[in-house]
């Protein structure tokens, strides 16, 4: 679909004397948000020379964005099917609590690699199961995804609180996990960042180049047509929400690795953060259109903005204002551009 519209745009633009590659670039969905990101980086680099665009700062922005990036990749798939998942923060907590409780009863902070591996499996399994369950309910078509996952948000958090009595248990993460994935580095690049990059690359390829990705996009565009073409829509939805759950489980592992605790109360706004990033990245809330690359840019815009504003010493309240304004402006520009293209 993207290739088609690109071709059309290229054909229309043929009358102006603009180099072909510029025209093609301008039709890329991600270009404009990428321009905003570059502009922000340039601005802060000039405003705080020697402080902002440094190896240290780039690394820390990437580390802090890693978990949101992993969640954002899953959310991109969900939103492309014209769905939404509000439950991700709670699912992350539930997966972290399940893995953490196992760890506590099998050695606590000093547990060995075997326990660590099993904890990872538990977190991924709990996340996937919860996601797939929500997907199955969405697939019945009786309850909208907004409500299904709103219910899931409360239920998952409630179960996590029941299991722990509402307090973060001590010894939820092994020091092995913390010193490897949490704080370890390879050639100066933190494992957290490498893991997030691999997840992004793999699922970017899945969305762009496999039948699974094609079906996901097709469901978002026109579910009825897809169903008539003989593709099982329900099964695909279960898989997509299951994938979101799997990545929330992975997020739980990453959280335990870097924070060493389940932070039951610390994930209430993960969903808004991640949805903001996906929408900033040009994925349509109405489904059928979106890309993982866009989500990467969408995750980094707020991250760069908050870090940059702290570095140049702007009062905190302005940071929230700035992120809000950039969100609305970015989506506005994106819509304008789409309209122009459609008219052409």
């Amino acid at each position, binding site marked *: 679909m993207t290739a088609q519209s690109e071709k059309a745009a290229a054909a229309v633009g043929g009358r102006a004397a603009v180099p072909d590659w510029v025209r093609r670039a301008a039709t890329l969905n991600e270009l404009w948000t990428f321009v905003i990101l570059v502009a922000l980086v340039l601005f802060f680099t000039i405003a*705080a020379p020697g*402080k*902002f665009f*440094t190896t*240290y*700062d780039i690394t*820390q*922005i990437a*580390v*802090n964005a890693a*978990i949101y990036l992993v969640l954002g990749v899953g959310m991109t798939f969900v939103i492309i099917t014209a769905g939404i998942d509000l439950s991700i923060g709670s699912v992350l907590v539930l997966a972290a609590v399940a893995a953490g409780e196992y760890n506590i009863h099998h050695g606590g902070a000093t547990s060995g690699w075997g326990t660590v591996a099993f904890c990872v499996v538990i977190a991924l399994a709990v996340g996937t199961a919860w996601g797939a369950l929500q997907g199955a309910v969405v697939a019945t078509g009786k309850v909208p995804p907004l409500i299904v996952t709103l219910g899931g948000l409360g239920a998952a958090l409630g179960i996590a609180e029941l299991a722990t*009595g*509402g*307090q*973060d248990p*001590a010894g939820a993460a092994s020091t092995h996990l913390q010193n490897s994935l949490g*704080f370890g580095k390879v050639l100066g690049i*933190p494992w957290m960042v490498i893991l997030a990059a691999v997840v992004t690359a793999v699922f970017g390829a899945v969305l762009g180049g496999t039948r699974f990705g094609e079906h996901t996009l097709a469901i978002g565009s026109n579910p009825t047509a897809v169903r008539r073409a003989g593709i099982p829509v329900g099964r695909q939805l279960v898989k997509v929400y299951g994938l979101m759950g799997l990545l929330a489980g992975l997020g739980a592992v990453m959280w335990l690795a*870097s*924070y*060493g*605790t389940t*932070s039951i*109360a*610390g*994930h*209430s*706004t993960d969903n808004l953060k991640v949805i903001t990033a996906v929408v900033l990245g040009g994925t349509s809330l109405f489904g059928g259109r979106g890309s993982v690359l866009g989500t990467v840019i969408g995750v980094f815009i707020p*991250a760069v903005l*908050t*870090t940059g504003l*702290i*570095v*140049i*010493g702007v*009062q*905190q309240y302005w940071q929230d204002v700035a992120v809000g304004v950039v969100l609305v402006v970015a989506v506005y520009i994106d819509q304008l551009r789409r309209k122009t293209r459609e008219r052409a």
Partner: protein
Amino acid sequence: MRSIRSRRRLLVAVGTVLALGAGASACGSSNDSGGSGSSGSAKGKKVRLITGVKSDPFYITMTCAAQEEAKAKGMDFTADGSAQWDVSVQRPLLDSVAASRPDGLLISPVDTSALTPSLKQIQSSGTKVALVDTTVTDTSIGITRISSDNEKGGRVAADALAKLMKEKGSVIVISVKPGVSTTDARIKGFTEEMGKYPGIKVLPTLYDNDLPATAASQIQSTLAAHPDLGGVFAGNTNTGQGIATGLKQAGRQGAVKVAAFDAEPDEVASLKSGTLQVLVAQDPAAIGRQAVDQLAGAFEGKSVTKSIGTDMVAITKDNMNDPSVSKYFYKSQC
């Protein structure tokens, strides 16, 4: 089956309490000849405690001390607390206690105004109310209010942190959210006290909305802008955790000193392991004990202190094994 059995057990328990109460009050009145009605001896008086969060070690410590003190004074004392920090959870609890018409009530209200009507009602029916830890804005409620002197706590934190920083460098406060009376008072005391050290620069306060991930990114961004950062004052446990992770990611753990409020078991563990360098402990045991004393005084017709601020103490790795300091560690059970 099960419900019937438990109800029977409850009835037996109620019966026992009533019998004990009657016996004790009979004792009290025979001892005290001049007592008229409710005033007289503290002995046998029915006192209830409702805390903010049942499972919080701060409140557990307070409850343990209050219970011990009440037992020593021969009071009929029981305690309960909300499952969460939520008005809609605490109010039913308060209403059920009110229905039992206790002589005295110790409460940590979770909201400054929403519980006022219920508290007014229970007070007008003759129960003496003592506000412990948190308060309500309506000053007519409560014969006494006992809480930590939070401004002083901020000062204690500032002095301990300044000492560890060798009185130079930048320092920042990362708190939960603006507009919370206790944390605002701590920040005020902290900032004022830090002003006494000419070598230390206080950066503008940041708020993380209780999200550790936000605190982690904030502390790392602050390090980018101020490489001379030497100390952080954390608003609560979640914030402290985020700061610790942020400093570890940046490879600056231990170089940047972290002070946090309270002395809960996991915080004491962090102090031991070197994640935190200063804990500013409140004295919940003193709050509980003094509240019971004040109520006893009121029952005996003595004068009551309207407002009491309890002390705070700074705990570092150096003094944490000293019994006069380690007695401030909060308990997770009596």
